[in-house]
């Protein structure tokens, strides 16, 4: 299992969100909830992939009436531009290798995947956010998706707003949503090939000319302050 960065900041007990988490855990049964976190007045819940549709129904029954979004995430590290720059390591080799230690919190695993809040087992995750007008509480839900054949149940029969979001996620990440009534491209032309938001999809304009972007940032010369603040 991929490592989870340590994000704890002395969480205060959050009654409203704990109640939602308890309700969701009860509704999904044993093993339905794989991970959860309450932090910064927000709630994250990672559920089993096969419980994704049941999660939507359970959330609707818990009073989550407002559909916020569905999106995907590809946890594979950037293959471009220079991964060193992406990780914030702005020191070059001839400076004596004074590597920053406050960069990525965890050593990457063998696949290089570092997953975020509530962890994850696979390369892809689908994430969704719902909000309850009555409770004034929002929840971010996550589910792991298979790296080779990412598929998951569609939410469009529970939350009709999921229709467009799933079409977008499908064309951008290649996740199939089972039960979606009309899984066609939303933004991209019909003949477009590839999944642009996957990390291994190159941004050609940056391949040709690496500007403007991360590589544009040069380290400050020594003695001018650097990270010391203004």
């Amino acid at each position, binding site marked *: 299992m991929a490592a989870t*960065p340590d994000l704890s900041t002395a969480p205060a007990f959050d009654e409203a969100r704990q109640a939602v988490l308890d309700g969701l855990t009860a509704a999904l049964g044993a093993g339905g909830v794989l991970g959860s976190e309450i932090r910064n007045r927000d709630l994250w819940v990672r559920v089993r992939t096969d419980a994704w549709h049941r999660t939507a129904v359970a959330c609707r029954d818990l009073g989550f*009436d407002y559909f*916020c*979004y569905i999106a995907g995430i590809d946890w594979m590290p950037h293959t471009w531009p220079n991964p060193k720059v992406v990780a914030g390591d702005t020191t070059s080799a001839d400076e004596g290798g004074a590597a920053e230690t406050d960069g*990525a919190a965890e050593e990457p695993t063998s696949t290089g995947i570092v997953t975020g809040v509530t962890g994850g087992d696979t390369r892809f995750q689908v994430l969704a956010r719902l909000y309850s007008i009555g409770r*004034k509480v*929002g929840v971010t839900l996550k589910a792991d998706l298979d790296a080779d054949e990412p598929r998951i149940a569609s939410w469009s029969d529970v939350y009709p707003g999921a229709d467009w979001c799933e079409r977008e996620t499908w064309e951008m990440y290649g996740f199939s949503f089972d039960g979606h009534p009309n899984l066609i491209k939303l*933004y991209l032309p019909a003949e477009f090939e590839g999944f642009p938001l996957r990390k291994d999809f190159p941004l050609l304009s940056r391949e040709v000319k690496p500007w403007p972007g*991360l590589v544009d940032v040069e380290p400050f010369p020594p003695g001018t302050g*650097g990270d010391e603040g203004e």
Partner: protein
Amino acid sequence: MAVTEQQQRAYIASQAADARVNFELQTGDMTLNLGPQHPATHGTLRVVARLDGEQVVSADVVCGYMHRGYEKLTEVRTYPQITTLINRIDWLSSFANEVPFILAAETLMEVEAPPRAQYIRTILFEMSRIANITLFIGEMGVQLGAITPVFFAFRDREYVLNLIESATGGRFHPNYDRIGGLKDDLPRGWIAECRDVMHKIRGYCDQLEDLLMGNEIFETRTRGVGVIPAEVGLSYGLSGANIRASGVDWDLRRDSPSPLVWKDLDWKVWTHPDGDSFARYWVRLQETREATKMVDQMLDGLPAGPIQAKVPRIIKVPAGEAWASTENPLGEMGYYVVSQGGLGPFRCKIRSASFHNISITPWILRGVYVPDIITILSSLYFILGDIDR
């Protein structure tokens, strides 16, 4: 790479084939293609409606003519560079786009801007709302055949844009918000000028209320047209004035914890029980007036002090995930920022309001008459950049 004529022809043919496959003609029905270049679409939105006589049988929305791939582009930019980019999402209230992104980054960095910066942020946020919605208030009249309001709208919006420009340097794309504070303080004389303009905007709202509300044509064309029940709207992800016009008393400025200063102000969340096009217009008009009052209060309470918290010169955001959203002029706009400790976000999901507001159109256009398509689209109020990102 030049596109050959053959490729061009193939592309056009495939587009036509798409339209044929998706909306197969049936006997007695007619397919009406509205857009992508239609004045009512504020840009390049295409609505394909299948008509039975004057009535819409089914309608579908084709978007993506302006898709710029911002979610991909954020992954190759540093945090300070991204505000320039996201200015262009909802281009009529650009400053309001920057705020939730900066708030998400500040949550991860655990920094908070000083009080004066929060006040100026909120003032400019509300002024973006005024700049955006004044245009809607005028524009909606034009869509329904009343030309006068839009001239007033452009005249009075200019006062607000001038103020935004004098404070930020940019009329449309301020790029003014920074992690931990602001680019600059307000210029001298700005506050007095701002009070004056807020007074003018209130006058504009009164004028528009006199011009359109109670006008028989306007009322017949908007009352009862495009009714959205609250629970349907919520399940489609409608937010902002669109859902408040359906009687849902929900405003993120009041209901979500935010470092911005709305909690210190005395103001009212306007709702309307009807859920029709008129209600959406009415709620937005009231909100504009409310926003001017909020700006006045903030100018009175503007604290002195620094405008920038102490942050490193090279901004690296600690690993983590944060969601921040605000009540933008068009609805809830939020950013889900995933950081792995680098100079730029690992992933940034942009939740823009118009995308979700307009996703209800296939549902709401079913069964309406052709002229009402325009009423409904303009009353839902979208900015193309906010749909296509």
